[in-house]
């Protein structure tokens, strides 16, 4: 790890515009620094900023950037209004990491492309124009949508997929003011030479807002396919929600994870669902089940897949 200067921001104003890498939970940044992929000359610690609140916001929620993944997954309002967000969080990382990792840090986490993570491999995402080692390499976890000849990496977050599905917006403070970007468009897709940064210099994510889910709160899920039961990144995942009225779907949300450099909203599929009759008989919910860890159903598929396929949880 390179030597750096450590500074702690006591106010948001001090963090905005500061020249350096933002340190929140540190679970991704310190890892990248240890392997030499991130080499900031200064760390700006924002853990003491008042960004840990989850506030009601026009029927939706405003989530502070420093809210930990664990706290967010346990928030009763998330469980009631956005169960797919809780499921996405609990399907990712480990309990230790979820206690440290922040909401803003989850959004900003780097790709897990193994060539990006190896400083000796040419990578357009690290150095634009240096080449892509993944193309022609081992690509089983790489993008199938939105890629370019410069980069085929995917965004690894589970949380962001659920946030994108339910129209979350990333709130950003910068030296020239604030701006808001929909979660589904926040992560830039690769262009012909590399991948533009999601944030400009000096910008800091302050909150993520989720609008009122309306009738979708009750019928929302996150499903994740991975190579082992727990503690693995998605090969592919989906966050989905529908609002059913009078037996027909009146609103639908669908976002895919593990397939592109951003959570991928499937707008055409959503449109195709509108007006369709409710096509399934819902399984009974397990009684008195707090949405913590998905549970193996009574009729039990093999352990290798129950976690991904199990039902929620309310």
């Amino acid at each position, binding site marked *: 790890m390179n030597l750096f200067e*450590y500074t702690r921001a006591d106010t948001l104003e001090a963090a905005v515009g500061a020249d350096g890498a933002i340190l929140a939970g540190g679970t991704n940044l310190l890892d990248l620094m240890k392997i030499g992929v991130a080499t900031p000359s200064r760390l700006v610690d924002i853990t003491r900023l008042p960004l840990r609140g989850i506030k009601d916001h026009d029927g939706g929620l405003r989530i502070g950037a420093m809210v930990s993944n664990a706290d967010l997954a346990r928030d009763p309002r998330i469980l009631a209004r956005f169960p797919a967000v809780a499921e996405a969080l609990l399907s990712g990382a480990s*309990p*230790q990491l979820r206690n*440290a990792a922040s909401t803003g840090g989850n959004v900003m986490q780097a790709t897990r492309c193994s060539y990006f993570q190896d400083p000796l491999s040419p990578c357009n995402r690290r150095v634009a124009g240096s080449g892509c080692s993944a193309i022609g390499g081992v690509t089983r976890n790489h993008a199938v949508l939105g890629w370019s000849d410069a980069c085929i990496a995917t965004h690894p977050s589970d949380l962001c997929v659920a946030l994108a599905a339910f129209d979350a917006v990333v709130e950003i403070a910068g030296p020239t003011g604030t701006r808001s970007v929909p979660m589904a468009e926040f992560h830039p897709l690769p262009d012909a030479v590399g991948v533009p940064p999601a944030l400009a210099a000096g910008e800091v994510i302050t909150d993520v807002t989720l609008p009122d889910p309306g009738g979708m709160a009750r019928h929302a899920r996150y499903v994740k396919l991975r190579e082992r039961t727990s503690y693995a990144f998605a090969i592919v995942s989906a966050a989905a929600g529908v609002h059913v009225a009078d037996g027909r779907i009146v609103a639908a949300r669908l976002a895919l994870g593990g397939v592109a450099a951003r959570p991928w909203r499937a707008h055409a599929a959503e449109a195709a669902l509108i007006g369709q009759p409710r096509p399934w008989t819902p399984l009974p919910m397990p009684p008195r089940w*707090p949405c913590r*860890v998905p549970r193996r159903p009574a009729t039990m598929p093999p352990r290798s897949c129950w976690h991904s396929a199990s039902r929620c949880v309310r």
Partner: protein
Amino acid sequence: MTQTLNLTINGTARAIALDDPRATLLDVLRERIGLTGTKKGCDRGQCGACTVLIDGRRMNACLALALSHDGASITTVEGLAQGCDLHPVQAAFIRHDGFQCGYCTPGQIMSAIALIAEGEAGLDPERVREGMSGNLCRCAAYAGITEAVLDATRTMKGNAA
């Protein structure tokens, strides 16, 4: 520039002069305080051997920048036993052979204590396995570990009642 790091470690307040900001909490515990019970396994947040409680919550000490946790209260495996009386989770790990080589054990025990305190796994073995998934055991003592956590959960529930 030397910066002073204030930590309460296993109940004792410590002021540590750090001349290198790169130190992780794991480095400080092992190299500066001499508490080598907390283990360095992967040093990348993947194995859980370095699990400690930071202000009561389990985290990977290897990915915790020490200066960022200035003022925190840390509990390590050395802070569990009261003299010769082992913590119920420590005793359960011995009773159920919850280890072989023992290298991951301090992290397993700290993680198990937090899991029981979180109160979300109860006595469901599948949920205990999920809740302990951040702690790898290359000897694969998982069967014993799960039994130890379940047994300790029952013991601590009995003690609390």
